[in-house]
């Protein structure tokens, strides 16, 4: 029996102001923004009525930037400066990009992440992605008539830590407050699960433009628990285009192609693939800038043959995910199809054969991720009460450390529910060793060199001891965004040294600051006013939340503790009202916020303890009910 809810005495029951929040699907091929209005999730269109924004960014000399359809139509004319499918480069080095030779870009090999040389200067994939996000932010703010409190940005479930960090950095650069990074299949499951009020085990098969994810979820009593996830972060519709492109080269027997002609043929290849969704054959014609021509017919069965190995590449991760979840095919109640590439008949057939059931396709596979993300953003912004759901997601790939001999020691296995923390003890190899190099890895392989290197750092100041006597505890913490932080501490002697690391593929805070400055110079935006405004809004929110908490649970504090918090509030209020001294006043307010946060930590802990006691008391009553 479900228990009825009665509010705390003194707790406000008045509905609070609706907070503007959006869900953004930052896709390889297309991106979308959606929001919840009057309880309904809807995709926001641009002025021309387009809901999809092609994930294409064109840089002009002088710094002007075009995003979307305008950029897309220029991609054959200006291939070097028109960046398509930038998502494939997020958090990736040059060595990671398989088909680099066939891409028209001027790559720069930078430490950590590859960069692109454009007419407007060298750009990181993070900056390119930020341009796409900025357009979506502006679209949302124009449609909703106000500033956003935050956004949920979706990422492929199989994205590793470097790719996630890069995505979060891009959002920050676009001026978005990231409420959460959400896995795309999980977002789709929200959109589907709540529409159909389903319970049971579901599979989400998500084939996008450049990534493939499979997630196995259990839905029970409003909780979406991801049991296992797998995939391939370099497999998608683009690869199907590439197969058709190769077929066109065989048909046309062209001389070596210019970048513009290569782009033209790739565009034709995509058109042919899309046409084959509706038709059993398609005529493919092209005239190159050299005057060379091709005119041939591609049948659906020839297409199926040339792409069969790609289709089966999606089934191996699907089997693995089911095995990790400890489930058989017949235990899966439904299969949700996500991503434009699942429109291909060969994919639908393969999925139907594998799961022995017709997959669910009633929601638009291009929109379902954004719709789910918007619903989650609405929950996280605090716009719903009582009837919301909970997502319990997992990390897709194991996290570990390199040990002696170049081997990987797993610290957190894949498919562990987040947030999670795990500590492991290591020791020294040599007598008198005073430093230790910590190499953080992600992946399933035994050799460290076969896994992705996330970060390296050194722990110094270990007291000299005989080999094996020191106890170095390395702690991994993965937060609810799936992002990792690592710290190390020497414990045997009581001497402590610890270090926090950010993965090397993510950008440092200084990089972000520099990029923000660059961005604002171009936008002619007043960076200082914006920063000050942000801090004031944050401070107001914090003071209001603290006052509300004290009104509700003031009994948990003694007089001295109450006074200390009041002092923190008063200090912050004074700062907000105080003289506006450029250029650092926003930093002073930020410090005031941090101080008040520190002063309320113990209070927050006691409030949580109380919440837990109440929840578990309700649980016991329910058991007997």
């Amino acid at each position, binding site marked *: 029996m479900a228990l009825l809810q009665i509010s705390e005495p003194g707790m406000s029951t008045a509905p609070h102001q609706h907070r503007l929040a959006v869900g953004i699907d930052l896709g390889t091929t297309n991106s979308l923004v959606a929001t919840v209005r009057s309880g309904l999730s809807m995709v926001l269109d641009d002025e021309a009525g387009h809901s999809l924004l092609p994930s294409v960014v064109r840089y002009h000399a002088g710094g002007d930037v075009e995003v979307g359809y305008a950029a897309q139509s220029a991609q054959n004319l200006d291939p070097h400066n028109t960046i398509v499918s930038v998502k494939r480069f997020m958090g990736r080095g040059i060595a990671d990009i398989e088909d680099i030779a066939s891409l028209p870009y001027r790559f720069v090999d930078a430490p950590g992440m590859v960069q692109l040389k454009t007419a407007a200067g060298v750009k990181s994939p993070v900056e390119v992605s930020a341009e796409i996000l900025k357009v979506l932010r502006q679209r949302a703010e124009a449609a909703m008539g106000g500033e956003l409190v935050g956004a949920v940005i979706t990422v492929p479930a199989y994205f590793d830590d470097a790719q996630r960090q890069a995505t979060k950095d891009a959002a920050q650069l676009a001026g978005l407050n990231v*409420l959460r990074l959400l896995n795309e299949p999980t977002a789709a499951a929200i959109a589907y699960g709540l529409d159909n009020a389903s319970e049971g085990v579901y599979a989400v098969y998500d084939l996008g433009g450049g990534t493939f994810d499979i997630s196995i979820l259990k839905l029970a009593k409003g909780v979406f628990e991801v049991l296992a996830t797998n995939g391939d972060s370099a497999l998608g519709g683009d690869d199907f285009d590439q197969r058709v492109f190769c077929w066109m080269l065989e048909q046309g027997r062209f001389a070596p192609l210019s970048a513009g002609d290569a782009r033209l043929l790739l565009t034709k290849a995509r058109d042919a693939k899309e046409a084959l969704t509706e038709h059993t054959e398609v005529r493919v014609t092209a005239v190159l800038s050299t005057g060379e021509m091709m005119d041939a017919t591609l049948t659906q069965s020839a297409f199926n043959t040339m792409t069969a190995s790609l289709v089966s590449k999606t089934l191996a991760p699907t089997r693995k995910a089911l095995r990790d979840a400890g489930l058989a095919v017949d235990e899966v109640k439904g299969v949700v199809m996500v991503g434009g590439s699942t429109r291909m008949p060969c994919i639908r057939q393969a999925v139907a054969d594998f799961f022995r059931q017709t997959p669910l396709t009633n929601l638009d596979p291009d929109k379902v991720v954004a719709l789910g993300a918007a619903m989650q953003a609405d929950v996280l912004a605090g716009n719903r009460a009582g009837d919301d759901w909970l997502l319990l997601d997992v990390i897709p790939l194991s996290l570990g450390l390199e040990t002696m001999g170049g081997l990987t020691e797993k610290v957190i296995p894949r498919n562990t529910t987040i947030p*999670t923390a795990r500590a492991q003890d290591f020791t020294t190899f040599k007598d008198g060793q005073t430093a230790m190099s910590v190499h953080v890895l992600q992946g399933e392989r035994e050799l460290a060199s076969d896994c992705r290197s996330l970060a390296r750092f050194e722990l110094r100041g270990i007291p000299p001891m005989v080999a094996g006597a020191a106890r170095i505890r390395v702690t991994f913490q993965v937060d609810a965004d799936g992002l990792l932080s690592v710290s190390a501490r020497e414990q045997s002697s009581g001497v402590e040294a610890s270090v926090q690391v950010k993965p090397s593929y993510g950008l440092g805070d200084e990089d972000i600051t520099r990029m923000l400055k660059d961005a604002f110079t171009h936008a002619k935006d007043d960076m200082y006013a914006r920063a000050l405004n942000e801090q004031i809004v944050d401070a107001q929110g*914090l003071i209001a939340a603290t006052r509300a908490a004290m009104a509700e649970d003031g009994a948990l504090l003694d007089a001295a503790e109450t006074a200390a918090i009041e002092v923190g509030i008063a200090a912050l209020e004074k700062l907000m009202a105080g003289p506006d001294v450029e250029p650092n006043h926003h930093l002073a307010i930020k410090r005031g916020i941090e101080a008040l946060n520190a002063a*309320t930590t113990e209070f927050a802990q006691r409030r949580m303890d109380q919440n*837990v006691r109440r*929840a*578990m008391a309700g*649980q016991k009553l329910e058991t007997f009910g």
Partner: protein
Amino acid sequence: MDFTQTHFELFGLPATYALDRAKLDAAYRELQNTVHPDRFAAQPEAEQRVAMQWATQVNEAYQTLKHPVNRGVYLLKLQGIDALDASNTKMAPAFLMQQMEWREAIDEVRAGGSVGALDALSDDLRAAHRRIEAQLAALIDTAHDFPAASEAVRQLRFMDKLIAEVGDVYEELES
């Protein structure tokens, strides 16, 4: 957070090896519903941090109790016994013989067996796993024979490794 509280107390369950899985799942859902960071995304940073610590702890507790080996190790640890102590490798000879036979069977399938043969082997291993779990419940909950329980936990861990190896062979056969 009360660090003296056991994982069983956290979920309001008796500290036994035999587990009411439905009750554990319900208590886990209830707790995560209360403490998960998603419930505090619009709250001040201090509350978000506390939520992450709590959610991390609740996940850790749930994984420990849910997993047959981890639950055994944890219960024995509450008795002051380190079941996985590297210096304690005592194992019944009959079990070791059986291990070797299973390992040979896995190698045979790997060398040229069928998925059907692997399915049969997998069923055998899982049945053995369940038998040891039942023994563990009797040893810990009824007989309170903790040294014997430690050995059963180690056996169970062996079984997990074998089952994982079978998973690898499935992958090899499928690719």
